[in-house]
């Protein structure tokens, strides 16, 4: 479906800024595949290579068996693309944008209405409003409609949920699930770690390198270090003290608690509790907890930086 082999891309006059380094991944037909990583990790660059917008320095990539460099016209016909930045015409209305994009893909709204119906009914009340005057959530829905209107075989969504509120984000992922069930392959990127679990498979990317590729469930189950949720009356002090406990201990805020991640099997809840008691911490709560994608990501980042330096 999508296969990427040894893709490299650098920027800058001397090519001294590495955007992607030796990327390899395969997306299966009908998969909802997530590319998870922060801003500047190289997500947009990879999307632009796959949508034939830029050329890789080396390596090769195919989308539906079409080569991204040579066979770009074929790819442009069969993919739906939603760029990271809102790219519809702000001075055209919802209706005008949609029919414009339908026409340039040689189709009509009516022909593929069944595909966008669920989203379109939500947009309908504002169909004569200019796209620029829509809220973030509505813009995002319209952009998805425009990317879907020609019934693409692959959907490329570059950070579709960035800057969108929680409610709209939830709705958006529910829609993606439905399109996946309708047989469309979806390649989506996001900086939100909590969205990773909604994908079939994910690739974690940081500084142009793939850190890991796995099913979210496996990623968590295979995570070796122990993770403890710790809470005290003085969170900040406790965190700093735990951090200095051992080289192999990482402590960081995680919601209401802090997570203490350790590759040292001797560090039991009892040992942590004793350590905190000795330093006069009150209201201490310690429990073993399931790691999240964010814990895994941070652990991978730590290892990536220690191996490179």
């Amino acid at each position, binding site marked *: 479906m999508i296969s990427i082999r040894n893709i490299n891309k650098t920027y800058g006059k001397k090519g001294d800024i590495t955007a992607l380094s030796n990327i390899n991944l395969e997306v299966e037909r009908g998969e909802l595949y997530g590319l998870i990583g922060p801003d500047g990790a190289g997500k947009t660059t990879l999307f*632009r290579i796959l*949508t*034939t*917008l*830029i*050329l890789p320095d080396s390596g090769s990539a195919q989308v539906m068996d079409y080569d991204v460099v040579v066979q*770009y*016209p074929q790819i*442009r*016909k069969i*993919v739906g*693309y939603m*760029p990271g*930045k*809102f*790219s*519809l*015409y*702000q*001075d*055209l209305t919802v209706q*005008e944008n949609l*029919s*414009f*994009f339908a*026409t*340039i*893909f*040689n189709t009509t709204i009516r022909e593929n209405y069944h595909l966008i119906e669920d989203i379109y009914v939500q947009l309908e009340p504002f169909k004569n409003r200019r796209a620029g005057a829509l809220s973030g959530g509505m813009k995002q829905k319209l952009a998805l409609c*425009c990317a879907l209107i020609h019934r693409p075989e692959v959907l490329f969504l570059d950070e579709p949920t960035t800057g969108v509120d929680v409610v709209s984000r939830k709705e958006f992922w529910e829609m993606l699930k439905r399109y996946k069930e309708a047989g469309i392959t979806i390649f989506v990127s996001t900086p939100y770690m909590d969205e990773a679990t909604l994908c079939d498979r994910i690739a974690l990317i940081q500084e142009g390198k793939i850190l890991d590729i796995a099913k979210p469930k496996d990623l968590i189950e295979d995570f070796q270090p122990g993770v403890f949720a710790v809470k005290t009356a003085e969170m900040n002090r406790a965190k700093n003290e735990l951090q200095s406990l051992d080289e192999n201990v990482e402590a960081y805020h995680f919601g209401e608690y802090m997570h203490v991640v350790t590759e040292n099997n001797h560090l039991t809840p009892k040992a942590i509790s004793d350590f905190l008691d000795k330093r006069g911490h009150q209201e201490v709560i310690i429990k073993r907890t399931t790691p999240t994608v964010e814990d895994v990501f941070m652990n991978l980042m730590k290892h990536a930086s220690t191996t490179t330096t």
Partner: protein
Amino acid sequence: MQQLIAFIKKEIYHIARDRKTLLVLIGMPIVQIALFGFALSNEVKNTKLYVIDQNKDEMSVRFIEEVQASQYFDVVGYGEDVGDVDRILRSGVSQISLVVPPSFSSDLRHVNQANLQLITDAINPNVAATINAYITAISRDFRNTEMGDLKLPYTINVETRMMYNPQLKGEFAFVPGVIAMILMIICVLMTSVSIVKEKELGNMEMLLVSPTSPAIVIISKAIPYFVLSLLIISIILLMSTTILQVPIRGNIFLLYGVSSIFIITSLTLGLLISTLTNSQEIAMLISLMGMLLPTIMFGGFMFPIESMPKALQIMSNIIPAKWFYYAINDIMIKGLGWSSVYREVLILLGFTLLYMGISLKKYEIRLS
């Protein structure tokens, strides 16, 4: 075809919804024509003239009557002493004094060369120069009638403008100039900015990842601006023929034909600029500083190219607007036909091909 129509429709929405820009585009030529026209005609009509006749014979009186009879001057007072001039200028009674020296008649009769002196408030040298030209013309006519049978070769330089503008109407010269300038703004500036805008706002990203061919994107941009340009030319021509009463001497179809070619030249230039830049500001700067300014400088309608230094004259050849100005001036003002403008048309076509060639070579089918 369906695609092209969708694109053109979209462009029309863009243009129509940007009310302010549209208003400026249509309003600017109207204001310019009105301003240039009325400002010039008010200046040269009924200029208050103070006459100091030191000759005071039959011939000088006839000459002064001749000046008075023209619609350009109003004689508001007579004097004898040149020393009065200063007082008259300061008092504001008149901005200009005409001194007819004591030897006027005899010089004209015997030497066939007489001097007149114009003393004028030179705050506005253009006005002074215009008035000077008028007096020169009147005195030439005067001499021709007076000396008709004794006509001798004379050495007065006659400005070209007067040959084709016997009524001495100043409006003539700038109408083609305003057309050239407006076309430059609409076709070069608006086209380049509108294409670059699509790049900057990310729309181009969406368009590239679609089966649309780049040619359609470009052509669909060009068509609405082409039509808009013709519309504005029509407004300018209509205004200048009705309000300013500047006749179109040549063939109107030829006029539109040549204008269409210049529009296409400008559109390809706009396209070229848009392929070379990625930001609206830079596109605007290049269009304004690199194109509009030279058009005004070297277009020939504000500053006569003939009086520029040689180097600048050579430089002016690379400004398409110069050739357009020459062609349109020939058709509109001089009433000449195809045979005298084909050279300019060929040059414009050459520019068009050059711009198109570079644009196609530089056109990105991907993001740069």
